[in-house]
């Protein structure tokens, strides 16, 4: 790390965060920033986490009703709605019940139920008109598809609010870069974390990754197709590069279910998809070097 770089690290929302600030900042400022970040993440977690029983999401899972979301929910729900429509329901915040039934529940029981149901259709069970969500039945929402990315964007905004504009936020592999020196980000080999499959040049944008094989149990992994109630098998890992982490994270998930072409008609992003046979596909505009061979 050349020049002044301060790294703030902590665990939050079940993942390891590293925030590199690549400009000169006083130790006092760094402390203040770190406190701000932790408070903001706690607020976010209290709203959107299905892993704590004091969250808004947990209350919504207990009973139908009208619930008030915080201001940040507008953009998150808007992005989910766009993804829901574009992926024909494959990406949905209503995936919570299915993942939980499959075993990835709040207690990490990892025991799948014998019968698993497809998630309900959005318009059948809830209406979101910011800031109010009206639900007709208890539902377990899960914002894993884009929620971490959105929080990364929010933390970026927080840093800018502290007049910090040169940083690289890394929340367990989902990243947001800001500043004049681009970052070289490796695509981790999902089959071997000591290797990378290529390197991307990332500047003033986000790169997010999605892979099924890191959270798997009983022959299931966490990226589940709601239409088949099974885990996606042919796509091994995806990466998306977009102006915001909200979009990059959402698209990285959506690429497991929907073609890049279909998504590119609506969203602005570049991508890399690696299949289980290690063949790959990537966008023409992806600023990256991919390491490739001619045979598996």
């Amino acid at each position: 790390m050349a020049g002044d770089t301060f790294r703030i690290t902590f665990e939050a929302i079940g993942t390891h965060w590293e925030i590199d600030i690549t400009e000169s900042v006083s130790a006092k400022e760094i402390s203040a920033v770190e406190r701000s970040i932790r408070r903001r993440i706690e607020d976010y977690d209290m709203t959107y986490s299905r892993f704590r029983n004091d969250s808004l999401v947990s209350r919504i899972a207990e009973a139908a009703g009208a619930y008030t979301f915080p201001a940040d929910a507008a953009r998150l729900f808007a992005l989910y709605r766009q993804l829901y429509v574009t992926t024909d329901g494959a990406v949905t915040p209503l995936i919570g019940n299915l993942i939980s039934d499959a075993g990835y529940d709040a207690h990490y029981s990892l025991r799948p139920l014998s019968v698993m149901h497809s998630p309900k259709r959005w318009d059948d069970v809830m209406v979101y008109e910011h800031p109010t969500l009206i639900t007709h039945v208890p539902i377990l929402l899960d914002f894993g598809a884009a929620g971490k990315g959105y929080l990364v964007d929010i933390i970026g905004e927080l840093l800018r609010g502290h007049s910090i504009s040169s940083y690289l936020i890394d929340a367990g592999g989902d990243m947001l870069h800001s500043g004049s020196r681009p970052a070289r980000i490796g695509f981790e080999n999902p089959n071997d974390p000591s290797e990378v499959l290529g390197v991307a040049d990332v500047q003033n944008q986000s790169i997010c990754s999605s892979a099924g094989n890191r959270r798997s149990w009983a022959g299931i992994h966490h990226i589940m197709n709601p239409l088949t109630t099974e885990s996606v098998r042919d796509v091994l890992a995806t990466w998306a590069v977009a102006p915001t982490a909200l979009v990059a994270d959402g698209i990285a998930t959506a690429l497991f279910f929907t073609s890049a072409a279909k998504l590119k008609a609506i969203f602005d992003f570049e991508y890399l998809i690696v299949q289980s046979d290690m063949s790959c596909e990537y966008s023409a505009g992806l600023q990256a070097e991919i390491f490739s061979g001619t045979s598996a």
Partner: protein
Amino acid sequence: MHNWLTGASHIVMMKTLTTLALVIIVAGARTTGALQQSVTGNPSGAFSGTADRENDLEQTNGSNLGSVPKGTSSGSQGDDSPAPTSSVEQPGVVTDSNSPSHVTSGGMTTSSSPSPTSSPTPAPEPAPSPQPVASRFRDGTYNDVGTYTIPTGNTESLGVTLVLSSDVIVDSSVTNMAKDPRSVSYQNDFIAAYKSFVIGKKIDEVSLTKVSGSSLTTIGFNNATDKIEASAKN
């Protein structure tokens, strides 16, 4: 005495041929461009057109097809590899004799070992900024047949099919149309290998700021699996 191409150089030739076929298909699919006005881009038939400039191809090729190495240039080969040519022509189309170097006769891409194929090279003119705009190429399935001459003097064929959607190649396939058993075998090798496969490099061999992947997610999840594993052992 005829020298058979080695398997590796046959594969190289296949790649070039597919590159040629790709260029021709994509050229034929263009919906704009003065040179192309007489080409109607028939999604289901074979056709040819003038070969587009290499950089246009890079700009408009929405996804990577393993057989189209970006930024490659032809080298001279010294061996008696035959030059790939396309046998299909559409009446009324002027064939551009100044086609890009990677499709002229005698030119062939060299790729004797796996190498990074994807470093995007800058276009000589500003590329349009990527944004969701109207497609430059008509959606559809495009077929073409490339032919080449083997040392026996006979002609062999290789079929290429591309499916374009919103300027992205969403699928591709190659069909073995060879007649000589050796060509059948080489084409089979190529078909199995032409899609680009990623390989890993050790992190310390690559200069990186950070790694993007999923290995550090869900500490809670990993704790749970550890506990389950521990309790399952007896």
